[in-house]
Structure formats: C-alpha cells, structure tokens
C-alpha cells in the first residue's frame, strides 16, 4: 500500500466520525457485508457506503472481490500507526504527569519542613 506523505492525518480524519469508528469496531470482530454493517444504524445503504469509501480510501478497510457481497475487512497497518500514536502519547503524558505529581508532593513536603507551609490538610496516604 503506498503511503501518502501525511498518511496519519488521513487516518485520523477517517477516524474522527463516530459512525465510522462503530463500523471499525464491528469489523474488529470479523468481516461483514454492507447490509450487516448498515443494520445497527438508522441510515440508508448509500450513506453507509459513503462511510465505507472513506475508510477504504484511508486504507482502514479492504473489500472483497467476491461478487455482490464484497465483504469488508479491517486493515491493520494504518490502525497500527494510530494505535502507536495513541499509545505513545498516552504513555508519554501519563508517565510525565506521574512524575509531576511526585515532584509536587516532594516540593510541598520541603516547604512544610522549612516552615512556609500553609497546607495542614491530611495528605492521601
């Protein structure tokens, strides 16, 4: 699959729609036809097809060649990029903020020790 220069942004734009995320969530459980995918939504088949085209264009799904059924399957590669991005940044910030929390606790302990502290409230054990 050729990667566009800003592939990640195309993927993120495709994922920005709740219906498309729901479709992907369904496909994570196995391939499905357009009719099956349309079932949970109060939406016309052409509308669902439009969402599928956006997902296909972003490389997030592939569609079978088998006659009129053309089952949809989830594609892993672009999802991996987004998953990496999410996992990376969630980890980055979660761990950074843990360390910030530690710093704030220590800084206030120091302050108390040297008699400037005004916060006598019981801290979390």
């Amino acid at each position, binding site marked *: 699959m050729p990667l566009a220069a800003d592939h990640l*942004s195309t993927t993120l734009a495709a994922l920005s729609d709740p219906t498309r995320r729901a479709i992907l969530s369904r496909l994570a459980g196995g391939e499905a036809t357009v009719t099956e995918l349309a079932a949970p939504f109060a939406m016309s088949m052409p509308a669902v097809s439009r969402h599928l085209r956006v997902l296909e264009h972003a490389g997030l799904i592939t569609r079978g060649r088998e006659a009129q059924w053309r089952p949809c399957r989830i594609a892993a590669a672009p999802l991996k990029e987004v998953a990496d*991005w999410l996992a990376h940044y969630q980890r*980055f910030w979660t761990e950074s903020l843990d360390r910030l929390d530690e710093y704030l606790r220590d800084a206030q302990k120091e302050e108390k020790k040297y008699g400037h502290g005004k916060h006598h409230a019981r801290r979390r054990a």
Partner: protein
Amino acid sequence: MATGSITPEEEHELVLTRVFDAPRKLVFKAWTDPKIVAQWWGPHHFTNPVCELDARPGGAIRIHMRGPDGTIYPMTGTYQEIVEPERIVFTSAALDAAGNPMFEMLTTVTFAEQDRKTKQILRTRVIKSTAEAPRYLAGMEAGWTQSLQRLTAYLGAHPKE
C-alpha cells in the same frame, strides 16, 4: 479521575485529566520553570539534559530527552498562549536525526483551582505529520499487539459518540 482518559472528540485528541494535591500557583510554576520541567518531562527513567523554556507567547521550547538506553530525542516547540496561572498552549515537534520536524502536536493545558487542589486538563492532537512519524513512534513504543489491543478496546469503548 486520577488517571488519564482518551476521548474521541475532535480529530483524535488525547485528553488527560488530573487532580494534583497542590495549589495552582505551584502547578503552573512546575510547568514553566525549566529546572522543574526537566525533573518530570518524559516517561519513567528518561532524563532531560537540555531543557530551555521561554515561557511567554511566541517563546521557544527546546528539550532533549534522553532514554534509558542513551538515545536522545530532541524536540522543539513554541508557546502560543501563557495565561498565568490558568492556561498554557504550545506546539511541539519531534525532530529526526537531521533536525527536521517529523510531526507537530498542539497541546493545551488548563489549571482550575478546587479547594487547595488543582484540576489539570491536558489536550493534545496531531496538527502535522510526515511518513517518518509512525516509524519514530514505533521505535519508542513496545509491541504492536499491545497497541492493537488498546485500539480495539478504545474503539469498543467508544462505538458511538
């Protein structure tokens, strides 16, 4: 909520909410004083041999993160907004070996006082990326299976809205 949560709003924004048991003034200082930021910026076991922050609108950010294996991850950024003590907005970009930005993030951090605690909301999203970005991230991240599981869980947890 004590730990972070991902929300699907906007274009895949990552939103992390924290309540710190510290006054807002101190939290804000911990974000803008480079000597303090160097102590907490980055994942566990990372250090920051370079941490230069010019905390005013238009001011530059320059941080070199050093991983536990010695790899240096340089980043630069620019402050968009500094509203003491309630709000910081900045862009940040990770640089490749040649010093070119691989992707750019926009991060907004707000601080609200609650009793003597501080509720901090951090939002971050990609504003630009290159084909190099995913490889860079993959290099820093653990297994792909784990990532896909997280994404599947994420998609499952937010099927609609």
